[in-house]
């Protein structure tokens, strides 16, 4: 549970005639992650790889064409099929797609054309509307002899620049309307300057209003004609849309079916193109969890007895290229996405998921302790898990996390004696944060010190697992880092508390020695691990960087520790917010009437929604920056087993 699954490298030698069914079996098993093995084959025979690659490209092109038709007909991909779809030959797919393209082409083009015309008419209208009251014939404006008039739209950001550029040319730029980033303007000038004005307007991206000749009369009359044309254009668009909707209705299933068949065939071709090739056989290589190797062996042998299978399980330290499959019980697995959002553990290092599954609810509970609010979260979590509300289905993966956080909030609510903000209903099993502010803040710093130290211990374990002795001893978060941190805590404790079993002198000596080792940790680490050069990037850069690094380490340790105060602060804030809600309720209805209770309910909903969100973010922040930062490297290669169609999550 604390480490990724053990993986085995599986190599298969597959006769040419079995390559397709064997690949289908590998994909159906859902456990085989292929790795490129072209280099294992004979270079002379790489024509096969070329053929499969060409086939894959053909399928990719066909897939694109299907998607284009689907987009035009507004058909979505739908969920992936439950069973792997049948493979298809490129020629057959090509014929089907040709037919679909022909069928959809004309109606979609007509719809696009109709929409374009409608948009153009609407643009004319929006440009004419600001001059609707002008009692001038548009033909007069079109045929002016001495005056230059140019109405149009341009980016508002260019207005000032256009005015600057025309400073020396007699002209007036009138802004009629400004919407978003566009301005509707009219540029006036003398006809003799028309060329200069046109070039200036064009360079300022003034798109002229080119009202067709058919719109005559005053602007008001032209607007009336335009409105009537817009009505007709809308009707035409609606008719085209009906035809496209009909096609959508009758072709939705065949399009999706064809898409998944082509997609599966493309994946298969791409996979085989990466196999190595000998004269009569293919070399297939990939990763499988060791526990599933026998199952895979049986499945493959069911297809062909002629397939040779070799299995090798590498050591944990060779983690650079081994894919990482995390293995956790279902409750803990719910927290896995919180870890992978930050980074995927490397094959050789500890999987922090069990730790985050334990610490995340505790930190959340400390900040959000309330029996009532916790209960609401549990109900919300169960609702998410049930997948009964359609709009919440996408969040069903978080259902377990929300439920567990709700339980933690209820537990801490009992410790704080708080139910929906009411502090008189329950006797606190521990203390009320609002009445014991210093106690709760100091307690949370203590928890923080514990978590940070645990993070450093995990870093030490990771170093042992990776056989990185330099990192084990000299890393900022290694043994000397831990000693440095605890000697500083000891010094701080003796300064504030006074009577400690150890006197400050040995603690100070320990802090100085470990501090010096931390300062030169990089060089010492490289020295112990036999890596050269000892100093990377030159001595001068190193000397500049080293004191800053020590300073940064000190600041980081301090800020990381202080950071956990927020747990106590939020526990206090939670109580204070509840108090504010009751005060507001009192203000609205001093006799505790209906308005009071409405205020209490709304206030509690606000706390659950708003504060709940903030507390989740803060919890995640403490996990990622303070805790993970101490030991988690990440950067592991994700385990992505081969599949011909994506599995629905």
């Amino acid at each position: 549970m604390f480490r990724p699954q053990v993986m085995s490298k599986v190599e298969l030698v597959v006769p040419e005639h079995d390559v397709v069914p064997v690949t289908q079996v590998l994909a159906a098993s859902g456990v085989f992650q292929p790795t490129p093995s072209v280099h294992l084959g004979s270079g002379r025979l790489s024509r096969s790889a070329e053929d499969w690659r060409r086939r894959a490209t053909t399928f990719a092109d066909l897939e694109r064409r299907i998607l284009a038709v689907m987009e035009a007909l507004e058909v979505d991909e739908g969920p992936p099929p439950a069973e792997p779809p049948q493979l298809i030959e490129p020629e057959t797919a090509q014929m089907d797609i040709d037919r679909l393209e022909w069928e959809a082409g004309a109606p979609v083009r007509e719809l696009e054309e109709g929409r374009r015309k409608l948009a153009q008419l609407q643009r004319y209208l929006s440009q004419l509307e600001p001059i609707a009251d002008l009692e001038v014939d548009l033909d007069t404006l079109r045929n002016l002899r001495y005056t230059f008039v140019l109405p149009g739209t341009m980016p508002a950001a260019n207005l000032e620049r256009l005015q600057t550029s025309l400073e020396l040319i007699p002209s007036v730029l009138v802004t009629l309307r400004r919407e978003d980033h566009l301005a509707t303007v009219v540029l006036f000038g003398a006809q003799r300057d028309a060329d200069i004005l046109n070039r200036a307007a064009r360079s300022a991206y003034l798109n002229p209003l080119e009202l067709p000749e058919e719109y005559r009369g005053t602007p008001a009359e032209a607007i009336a004609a335009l409105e009537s044309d817009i009505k007709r254009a809308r009707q035409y668009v609606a008719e085209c849309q009906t035809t496209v909707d009909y096609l959508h209705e009758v072709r939705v299933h065949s399009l999706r079916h064809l898409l998944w068949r082509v997609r599966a065939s493309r994946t298969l071709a791409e996979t085989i193109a990466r196999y190595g090739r000998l004269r009569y056989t293919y070399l297939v290589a990939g990763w499988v969890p060791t526990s599933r190797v026998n199952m895979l062996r049986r499945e493959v042998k069911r297809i062909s007895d002629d397939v040779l299978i070799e299995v090798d399980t590498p050591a944990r330290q060779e983690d650079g290229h081994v894919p990482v499959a995390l293995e956790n019980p279902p409750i803990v697995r719910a927290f896995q996405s919180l870890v992978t959002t930050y980074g995927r553990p490397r094959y050789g290092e500890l999987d922090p998921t069990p730790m985050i599954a334990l610490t995340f609810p505790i930190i959340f509970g400390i900040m959000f302790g309330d029996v009532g609010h916790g209960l609401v979260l549990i109900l919300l979590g169960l609702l998410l898990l049930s997948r009964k509300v359609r709009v919440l289905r996408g969040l069903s993966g978080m259902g377990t996390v929300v439920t567990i956080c709700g339980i933690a909030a209820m537990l801490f609510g009992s410790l704080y004696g708080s139910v929906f903000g009411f502090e008189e209903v329950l006797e606190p099993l521990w203390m009320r944060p609002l009445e014991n502010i210093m106690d709760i803040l100091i307690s949370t710093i203590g928890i923080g010190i514990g978590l940070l130290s645990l993070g450093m211990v995990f870093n030490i374990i990771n170093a042992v697992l990776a056989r990185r002795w330099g990192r084990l001893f000299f890393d900022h978060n290694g043994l000397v880092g831990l000693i440095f941190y605890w000697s500083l805590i000891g010094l701080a404790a003796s300064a504030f508390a006074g009577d400690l079993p150890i006197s400050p002198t040995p603690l100070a000596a320990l802090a100085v020695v470990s501090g010096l080792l931390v300062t030169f940790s990089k060089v010492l680490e490289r020295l112990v691990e036999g890596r050269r050069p000892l100093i990377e990037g030159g001595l001068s850069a190193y000397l500049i960087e080293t004191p800053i690094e020590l300073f940064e380490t000190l600041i980081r340790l301090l800020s990381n520790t202080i950071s956990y105060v927020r747990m106590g602060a939020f526990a206090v804030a939670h109580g204070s917010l509840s108090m504010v809600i009751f005060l507001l309720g009192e203000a609205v209805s001093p006799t505790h009437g209906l308005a009071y209770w409405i205020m209490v309910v709304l206030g509690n909903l606000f706390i659950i929604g708003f504060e709940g969100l903030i507390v989740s973010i803060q919890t995640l922040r403490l996990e990622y920056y303070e805790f993970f930062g101490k030991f988690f490297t990440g950067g592991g290669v994700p385990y992505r087993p081969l599949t011909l169609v994506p599995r629905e999550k």
Partner: protein
Amino acid sequence: MAIRDVRAYSSIHARVRALYSTMLTPETWEALIQAQDFDALLNILSKTVYGPYLQIERGKLTPRRAVYQIRWHLADIYERLIPLTPEPGQQLLLQLWRRYEVDNLKATLRGVETGASWDQVRHLLCPMTKYITLTTADMEKMIHSGDMARAIECVRHTPYYGTLVHALERYQEEKTLFPLEVALDLDYHRGLWHSIDQLTGPDHDHALRVVGTMLDVNNLLWAIRYRVYHHLSEQEIINYTLPLGYQVHDEDIRAIAAGADIAQVVRRIYPDAEGLEQLSERARAGLAALEVSLQRHIVRTCHAAFIGYPFHIGVPAAYLLLNEHEVRDLTVLIEAKVSRLPLEMFVSMLETQVPAYQTEQR
């Protein structure tokens, strides 16, 4: 010295200092310049910070692919430094990073215009995985759309859509990418200026010095190029440039647009600029020399950011810009080695390092 700045920038500054020391040394540049051919150049590069990016099958490492691989280093350092940088300085780095997105978008639009295949376009792009609005899938979709209007529809979700869709009308009339590219550049640089404006104190001053210098040079070179190469009118030049800058002011741009002596204007701003004498006789040759000279001015400004008070956004910004110039120079070298150009033809184009013999030549 504000303690807040020290706390905020100590970590990133230490990292940038360490990374700064991994930039190519003058000795490595010398070896790269003297490399026999493309293969020899790759051998030298494989021992530098670019080594890990070039570890792909040699047969696949075409010159275009090599440049693409080298750009991964740039992507990596941006993606490493951005999350370490405190706000609001982080916004400036994000805006600087967006420049590559704009360049990718322009390269994709060029691909759409010329009907190039995705395979032809993909390795011309700067690899970007984080802090982006335009994904590789979007750009692939643009290329496959086969038509400029449809391609622009593919970026509807990005901040570039409004700019492009408005400029599309001009593209459709003129059938040239010029209006689309200029619109993107102007919009981007306005955004960059805005990010500098959001900063205060030493952050603002140093960002203005480093990034403002880059903005100045771009703005100035646009104005000169529009006059020398495109023969645009005064009004057009003004509209295609920006009224903002650090040392280059609107009066300078307007003077160039109005036909003033370019050399005189540039000398007033950058007294040490090269190529000015040639500008009046052989404008194009002079302009090429001036461009390199101004790019070197940016490089010098960036190096200067590492001297003095260090806790500000200028240091990471300068480091990132320096890397961009390093990658540009490597691109020049790769192209030169592939075309087997003699030394004297390409050394003068390098921006980051001025080898001794080149100084002597001058």
